[in-house]
């Protein structure tokens, strides 16, 4: 029954509703092209951190701390020199490249500050992104690169895998005691085309705008009348004149 009353008000104010519909359509039209994102590509390769004699085939090859070392090798890519090297390999500016290391290990309880900083300052905003995903159990690091084109993404992931091996060799105490980083298979790449979600989002925004507009069409006049009903009564008028203005007006 309440819906009937609301519908009556909207029917009576059909001009305002129609104006709202036009505005909503305009919003959808404006939002849709802007919502489309640039197509990008992602390339992914898994690398195995291993000993020269291959710990996977020779059980006596030790390297009991290799999981920690794999994690540290991935983190070493975060350094400035390494970032510059990667940027050079892809042919972009260093400032256009985001590098992050994420872990499958649950992080310790962050502080409010650390949480905020990680969310805002650590958010990937640059066109070229490199993400290294490490695990506490498996000696495999996933290298995931996102770039505007497939070729760039492939180059970036390839360069990152090579760089990790370069770091491993450079930091080794000797050739035989050093670790090696070798890709597991070839790099896979796929484009990330703009999906239809943006268009749906634009329609949703327009719909929400229209619903809010209709709500305002019903509510705002009521508020105006309510505020008016608290006006000062005319001299000599009865006590409830002001109030009765609100109640005597046709509902809706």
């Amino acid at each position, binding site marked *: 029954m*309440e819906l009937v009353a609301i519908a009556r008000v909207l029917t009576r104010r059909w001009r305002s509703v129609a104006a709202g519909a036009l505005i909503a359509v305009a919003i959808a039209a404006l939002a849709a092209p802007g919502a489309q994102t640039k197509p990008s590509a992602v390339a992914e390769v898994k690398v195995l951190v291993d000993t020269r004699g291959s710990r996977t085939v020779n059980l006596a090859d030790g390297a009991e701390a290799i999981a920690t070392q794999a994690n540290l090798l991935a983190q070493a890519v975060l350094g400035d020199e390494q970032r510059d090297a990667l940027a050079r390999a892809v042919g972009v500016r260093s400032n256009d490249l985001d*590098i992050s290391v994420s872990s499958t290990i649950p992080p310790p*309880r962050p*502080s409010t*500050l650390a949480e905020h*900083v990680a969310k805002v300052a650590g958010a990937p905003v640059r066109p070229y992104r490199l993400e290294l995903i490490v695990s506490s159990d498996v000696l495999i690091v996933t290298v995931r690169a996102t770039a505007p084109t497939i070729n760039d993404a492939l180059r970036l992931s390839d360069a990152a895998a090579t760089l990790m091996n370069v770091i491993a060799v450079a930091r080794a105490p000797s050739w035989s005691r050093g670790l090696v980083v070798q890709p597991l298979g070839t790099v896979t790449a796929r484009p990330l085309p703009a999906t239809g979600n943006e268009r749906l989002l634009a329609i949703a925004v327009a719909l929400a705008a229209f619903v809010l507009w209709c709500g305002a069409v019903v509510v705002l006049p009521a508020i105006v009348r309510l505020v008016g009903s608290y006006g000062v009564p005319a001299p000599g008028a009865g*006590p409830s004149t002001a109030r009765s203005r609100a109640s005597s007006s046709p509902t809706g």
Partner: protein
Amino acid sequence: MVASLAALMSVYSLSLLPPRLEPRGLQIAGAFTRISLDRPRPLMSDRLATDGDYHTLRDRTVLLGTLMTSQPAMRHIARRAGIDANRIAGVTRITADVPATITEPDSEQRANDIIELARPYRLEVQPDPQTPTLLITTQAPTVAEAQRLADAAAPGLEDYRLELARRRDAVDEPALRIEQLGRARGAVLNAGAKVVIAGLTFAFVFAIALAGLALAMRLRTARSAGIGEDGADPGEPAGRGEAPADTARTRGGALRPVFDPSLAISPAMPGLPIAVGPGGAVASPGGMRVAARERAAARGEISSRAGDWPHTTRVLPWLVAIMLAVVWLVPFNVVTLSVSLPIDVTFDRLVLPVLVAVWALAIAAGGRYAPRLRLTPIHLAIAAVVAVACLSLVVNARALNHALELELGVKKLTLLVSYLSLFVVVASVVRRSEVAAFLKYTLALAVVCALGMIWEYRFKYNIFYAWSDQLLPGIFEVGSAESEAVDDMGRRIVRGPAQIPLEAVAMMAMALPVALVGLIRSSRAGPRLLYALATALLLAATVSTYRKSAFVAPISVVLTLAYFRRRELIRLAPLGLVILVLMHVLSPGAFGSIVSQLSSDRLNAPTVSDRTADYDAVRPDVWAHLMFGRGYGSYEHTSYRLLDQEFLRQLIEVGVVGVAAYLLMIGSVVAVARRPIRLRRPADAPVALVAAAGAVAFAVISLLFDVMSFPHAPYIFLSMAALLAAAMAPQPRNDGERSWSS
């Protein structure tokens, strides 16, 4: 104007000599970087490195991380960053794999933290529990300064190490390699804080000013009404502008609702209340008019009862019923939309806005079926809770902004408003004649909930979580219940649709009065049997949670009912024994398990000692902001302590004034309920008893855990309070006249 000025002053500082308006320094920036530590001959790529080597290295990293925020090291870092060392707060966080309760700050730590928080620069060091690395996070007024401070951490630490080495004449000894992993990245952390602070201040001051103006207008109108009435003809027929039938004029002429206890049964309309005079006759002309109007209202009530829920086509009562079903049967707090949005959209946040929107539109559209806003003391008490919560945020806005907790406080305030909006909606939508039906409906939902909990207890299967997962579309993510899990004390975790077992206890305890009052009131065997069965089910579900609170909360309900209806309860004592046996049959073993937890040798369990430890630990927070607290919703348990008491949380967040408002909210329900309970009016005494007992249970539960952090319980408490408010409201007029319409 006042609100705009207050909002402006909250973000700008005004000086008169010379006249100047300067923006306040509200910007907070942050930066982060990582520091890696290794041996002089790196272990990173050495296959002979062992776990023991890394264990040692991690220990040294933790040591260096802790030393890093000591005064001598901070001096070096400050010098490198070009910042006064006294303006930097240094904190090293503990990340060892120990229970959270061990790392919770005690009173000394908190006192120190509160002092440190006032400094404009902050350096936080967090050792990584897996690798020998340190996460460096900084805070400063600008991004450049934050980055500079973060970048100074590694060289500052190196300087400090060298100073130590020189002092011990060990410069040439091998030392750890300190390497910064990339330049610090920074950003502004609180973009939009100015808008939030100004908006919050404006909203608060505007609301207070509006309330003050409305009160002033009301008083003025009342005074004018007194003058007008003197000259009016008492026999004149009632016009459109006159007071409604259920209002009277006070001595000063003010309109006030009549809550007349002397409502009697009209001979003409048996079963319906009309107003009669003190002597049983309607003597005066005014009285005649009132009586005639009451009869008309009664006739209207007959016709309107035909449209009472559930026999109604009105949408709003049905939406209220849906919302109540969601509250009782859906684990809505763990059901989230799997869509990336700025806020966490839990299931209730999808249903409640629809209800509130339709309600607001229906009020604005008007008509005889529109909800009626009626002000009761409970409304005022609840408004006080919101006002104090808002005030605490306004007063502490700058400090909270500096601690990056303002956003959290505003989010929690929105949550509080959503709880309370359910109250306002239910109180205005539900008619007095519908209250009994809604109480029965609530009991039915509670019984279904109890059955589900007993099922979970016996078969280790949570139907609420499982069915929500199966029935809801894929766009929703439903949390897991882990019904077979046990807590630190080896107790099963039975939670029903709630998030934690204690929340389920609160739900059952607040439904218990409905069953008990039904039991007290029913005279026929059939209904009595059903109410007894419902009572047994609710109690069985409560004890199935294995929580000591499962005894405390129902006892508080029974004691409250005993206070008001002791003779009736004593008469039910034999039935009570049967219910106890039935309870034991339904949840075998649970009762005994709780009894064993209450034995003296087990009362020093962590659940008890943690609670008692809170009292000392929160002293600095309480004393630092005694009156208005540190800001509503700003005490996040993951950052500070897990508080197991709502009153303690309220004391810290909204201070003494907030606790008083919270108590007022609960007390107002009992206060409003007292009169109908005493008068034993069949129309509203049952709901008054239910609401009063529910309110006492809610107060007791507030002593046992942070009840407002778990939404099921506040929703249930406020919906019951709303039913009481609906029952106590003046009779609606039959002519469809409303207080405001579009």
